[in-house]
């Protein structure tokens, strides 16, 4: 048994390469592992990290953990909605941003916190959050990174 090739690991590889899990890859993994595509889909949909559709150029993870909740993460979510027009799990119309809610980024002392493309931004206010995404959008020239 080579668990380097567990279904979870294979899906992680695919997502690392594509940013999401294209449908074809689910069939390929199923064939490779000798299991049904339903089983692979079952695994892919069980874990929140796996995405089945193409994300925007910039991935925003907004923390909605306990510490961030107590320090008004909902206000940051509202600010991002105002600025980008998207809620959790949605991608902006220009394809630049995908917003996802996560349960804790481990920077609770700096709550509320969001992480954009792996970089954490702490002690957010609604204004600061808007400014950060605006800066990224402007540096992207509207075309993406």
């Amino acid at each position, binding site marked *: 048994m080579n668990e380097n090739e567990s279904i979870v690991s294979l899906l992680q590889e695919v997502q690392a390469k594509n940013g999401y899990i294209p449908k074809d890859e689910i069939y390929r993994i199923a064939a490779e592992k000798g299991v049904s595509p339903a089983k692979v889909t079952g695994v892919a949909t069980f874990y929140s990290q796996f995405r089945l559709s193409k994300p925007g150029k910039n991935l925003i993870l907004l923390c909605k953990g306990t510490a961030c909740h107590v320090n008004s993460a909902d206000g940051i979510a509202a600010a991002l909605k105002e600025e980008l027009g998207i809620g959790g799990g949605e991608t902006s119309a220009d394809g630049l941003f995908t917003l996802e809610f996560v349960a804790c980024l481990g920077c609770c002392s700096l709550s509320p916190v969001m992480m954009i493309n792996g970089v*954490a*931004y702490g002690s957010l206010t609604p204004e600061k959050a808007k400014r950060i995404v605006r800066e990224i959008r402007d540096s992207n020239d509207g075309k993406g990174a």
Partner: protein
Amino acid sequence: MLRIVVGMGSCGVAAGAGRVKEALERAGAKPGITGCVGACYLEPIVDLYEGAELKRRLVKVAPEDAPAIAAAVESGDLAGVERLAISAEDEEFLSRQTRIALRHCGVIDPESLDAYRAADGYKALEKVLGMTPEAVIEEIKVSGLAGRGGAGFPTWFKWNAARNAKGDEKYLICNADEGDPGAFMDRAVIESDPHSLIEGMLIAAYAIGAKEAFVYVRAEYPLAIVRLEKALGDARAAGILGKNVLGSGFSCDIRIKAGAGAFVCGEETALIESLEGSRGMPRLKPPFPAEKGYLNKPSNINNVETFANVAWIILNGGAKFAAMGTENSKGTKVFALTGKIRRGGLVEIPMGLTLREVIFGIGGGIRDGKRFKAVQMGGPSGGCIPESLLDTRIDYRELGATGAIMGSGGMVVMDETTCMVNMAKFFLDFTARESCGKCVHCRIGTRRLHEILTRITEGKGREGDVELLEELCRGIKDGALCGLGQTAPNPVLTTIRYFRDEYDAHIRERRCPAGECAALRKFKIDPAKCKGCGACARKCPVKAIAGEPKKPYAIDPAKCIGCGSCEAACRFGAVAKA
């Protein structure tokens, strides 16, 4: 010349430590790095060392401060940076702690094996390789070390069971899933002192007879994965990890497995399912992992903080560890102090201190002059402890008696502006989404709890809702297979137990005493403070605000939906809850 060290844990980086480090480099300095010292509220932190002695700790450093720091180090005259030096009061946040699991965090360079070795690293492993596995387990037994992942089970007992289980193929697993939102000590240990985790794991692997080990790390911790990967590589290259550990004939390798985002995978049997590549759904126990774990082979699972204590215990003796704490709870425990606290971060203290000593003594109490209301411990499995119980000691049993739990060490502090019904709703939203779906009571019961809590916070609560919640809670506790479901009612039960008046106010008076529930609050403008700028009126989504420029504006209470946009918009503090 003084040595400059920048704190580069995730929280430091989030506060801007990366930019500070770059600025220092531009200013001609050669800064080294360290992990997280745990005083997160003071980040970014820059330490100045003379040899091994900390000369000055500079806090809340900005990139603009870099030239002054570089110049001070160059000249040896620190006058130019004294304004950044940590205050005596903040110094106490650290000096009042007793650090064992965090002993190297924020002190040594986490990316350097040499630095770890210079701090007595891998000496405990050397010692253990000359002992019998039974003697190692006995030392851990003497220490009284209990699992830091939540359940608090005696560590020696689990090691012994795995050691005695039949079979030659045994596995050791480190649980670094750290699912409690509000806890981050495991992340800090891996990012700041990865070799101490590796050393603790190798000692455990030797004790139980495992040749293969895994660290299951939460996907949201990219930096921890990078640092651990490097540490594993360095240890392997130095002959500490892999075949023939330190020439002893004992072999064990450790691999990283990244999680994929599911809270339930922190539960040990679900974690094993996930490691095997399946949906992370808990298994029925028994058989326990010690008998049938990963690939149905005997396995032992411990938490990161548990492992981080092991090398210290071996070097200093179990008795020294057991000398700290209470009758039932030995040694130290790390807490992540967050929320409405003045000084937030990681706090490691001997068991037996009271909650008051931790929250008010070390944490400095509530910020912004507000009043303490409750502390949430144990995350989604735990509960809210009120002010009247602040003298409860940090002890597995005493905390358990409050209805909360020690848990993994999350301590989220709340003030008078936090609504306790909304807090319960927050946790049930979490558990309802994270329920794996195997058990009906957990899958559907948590949803129903969430629905009832939602209607209460929306001012649609009914007489009898509290009793209904309690009845559902009992059913879920009885009908759930794993700890997630069994403990999911705790946030509801403890808030009902200690804050019944808040539930009643929502249900009977349609009032949220904390003023947090939007459906139950209104805003008004103080004419004395209003400058008539109109900013609030432009933000109001329902056009409830009107007025003439330069004259006080007013909110129509019949239209106001309590969203609070106006309060956020006003720069003069003229808007307040009615």
